[in-house]
């Protein structure tokens, strides 16, 4: 290769007559060489097997040929494209990304606010639409429930502890949210599903606190006080927000009454369901001989004996007098 003008600013392409794959003639040569190689290998393969109908049938040496390989390549690429399109459409978690856009101090503030009922119910209160706090609270409640089930000695035969805990917590959060959202739709309340999920999720903060304390400190009176105070505060907060977004006395009553009842009763259920029960739920359904709650045996036989004795004495007295 010679360079005629060493001082030129532009590289002269015409001086590069080195045909190392940069010209069209060379591509043609290369393809020709590849086809010849193929034919050689194809003939070698064809002589190995007696009936080479496979190769000669398509005229392009079938799947062993270059065209076959290219077709296979194309099919693979098309399949991959389809799969990634489907994946991006259905498994796109970016849909949920805006609901997780929170700062730690925001989460902390919302946790504290969930126990403070608002005073102003004349205009709609702002409800944050985020899912990070509620999800973390549901998982925390699952962990607390597991601890409670373990320390109370609950035996669940047909299920697992973990499955029951997760089912209870997520079922409550999603189920009651949907139900209240449906009621809100009937009562013309201005609340979206996301806001309802968020509201109820943060309302579980009070439940978590009460359960955490009372699963470790077993005093019934303490539980009742905490149930009224903390459960009541968190219910009042949710109820106030809903009232501020509904018009009319009857719809307000229906909506808020239902939510208050469900929320308070759930806390009651969680405390007593895993409170030193001997057998699990499914076991009591299957075994009618076993009483669901073991009672302490009172002194019934003594009383019964006394009654029976008195009855027999009176009957004997009556018989004797006749």
């Amino acid at each position, binding site marked *: 290769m010679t360079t005629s003008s060493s001082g030129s600013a532009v590289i002269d392409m015409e001086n590069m007559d080195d045909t190392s794959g940069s010209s069209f003639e060379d591509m043609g040569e290369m393809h020709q060489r590849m086809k010849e190689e193929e034919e050689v290998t194809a003939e070698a393969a064809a002589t190995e097997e007696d009936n080479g109908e496979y190769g000669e049938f398509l005229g392009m040496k079938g799947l062993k040929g270059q065209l076959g390989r*290219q077709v296979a390549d194309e099919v693979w690429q098309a399949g991959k494209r389809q799969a990634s399109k489907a994946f991006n459409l259905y498994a796109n*978690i970016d849909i949920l990304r805006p609901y997780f856009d929170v700062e*730690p101090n925001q989460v902390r503030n919302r946790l504290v606010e969930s126990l403070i009922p608002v005073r102003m119910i004349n205009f709609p209160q702002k409800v944050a639409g985020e899912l990070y706090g509620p999800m973390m609270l549901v998982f925390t409640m699952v962990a607390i429930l597991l*601890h409670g089930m373990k320390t109370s000695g609950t*035996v669940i035969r047909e299920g697992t502890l973990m499955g029951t805990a997760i089912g209870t917590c997520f079922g409550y959060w999603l189920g009651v949210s949907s139900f209240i959202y449906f009621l809100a739709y009937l009562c013309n309340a201005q609340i979206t599903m996301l806001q309802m999920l968020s509201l109820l999720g943060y309302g579980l903060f009070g439940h978590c606190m009460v359960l955490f304390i009372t699963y470790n400190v077993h005093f019934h009176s303490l539980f009742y006080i905490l149930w009224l105070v903390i459960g009541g505060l968190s219910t009042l907060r949710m109820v106030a927000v809903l009232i501020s977004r509904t018009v009319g006395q009857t719809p307000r009553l229906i909506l808020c009454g239902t939510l208050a009842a469900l929320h308070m009763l759930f806390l009651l259920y969680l405390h007593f369901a895993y409170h030193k029960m001997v057998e699990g739920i499914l076991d009591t359904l299957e075994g009618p001989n076993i009483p669901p709650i073991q009672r302490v045996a009172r002194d019934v036989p003594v009383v019964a004996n006394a009654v029976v004795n008195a009855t027999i004495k009176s009957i004997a007295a009556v018989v004797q007098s006749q």
Partner: protein
Amino acid sequence: MSQFAGLSDISISEDILVEGDISVPVGSHNADNDFSTLDEPVKDTILRDLRAVGQKFVHVMYPKKSSALLRDWDLWGPLILCVTLALMLQGGSVDSEEEGRPQFAEVFVIIWFGSVIITLNSKLLGGTISFFQSLCVLGYCILPLTVAMIVCRIVLVGGSGLVSFVVRLIVVTASFSWSTFASTAFLADSQPPNRKALVVYPVFLFYFVIGWMILTFSPSQ
């Protein structure tokens, strides 16, 4: 015209050879790569994988800010650790008088679904780490808890009184905080700086639940 004046000094020396190979790969490269690792004996493959897993174990026990765990992630280590932990935590038959000990499937599902949920959470919070890298990190950081399980088992052989409970509590608490610290050393770097606490909390909860399962494990008499 004047802007090209400075370029007039450029020249190509004659001894730079311009050569190369422009060929269209039609999939033959993949075949070559496959043959190069398919031909080696099985022992080599297993030893190579074991060495990679062992190296990652060392990285977990001494968590520095290295990227070895993230760069070549693999799920062998988490699988080994998860199966070991689940086997050791397995309860007896269903009609044993011990109430509700975690079965193998329960522990397995908790670990894998917990890891998936934490990974999704960290991705949704704006993390730059990929799905499988995060699974790899969370799985490998179960190693301290597995070690704690072995220690608890040994301690329980000696008896299950108050002293053994205190010892087990200390061991499990130490290993659970080690796990959380190790995984945040790897995971928290991929998050925006003010949101680290949001990612650390579910990791803390996850290892807390596993640690609690280990602590409340009591073998059948």
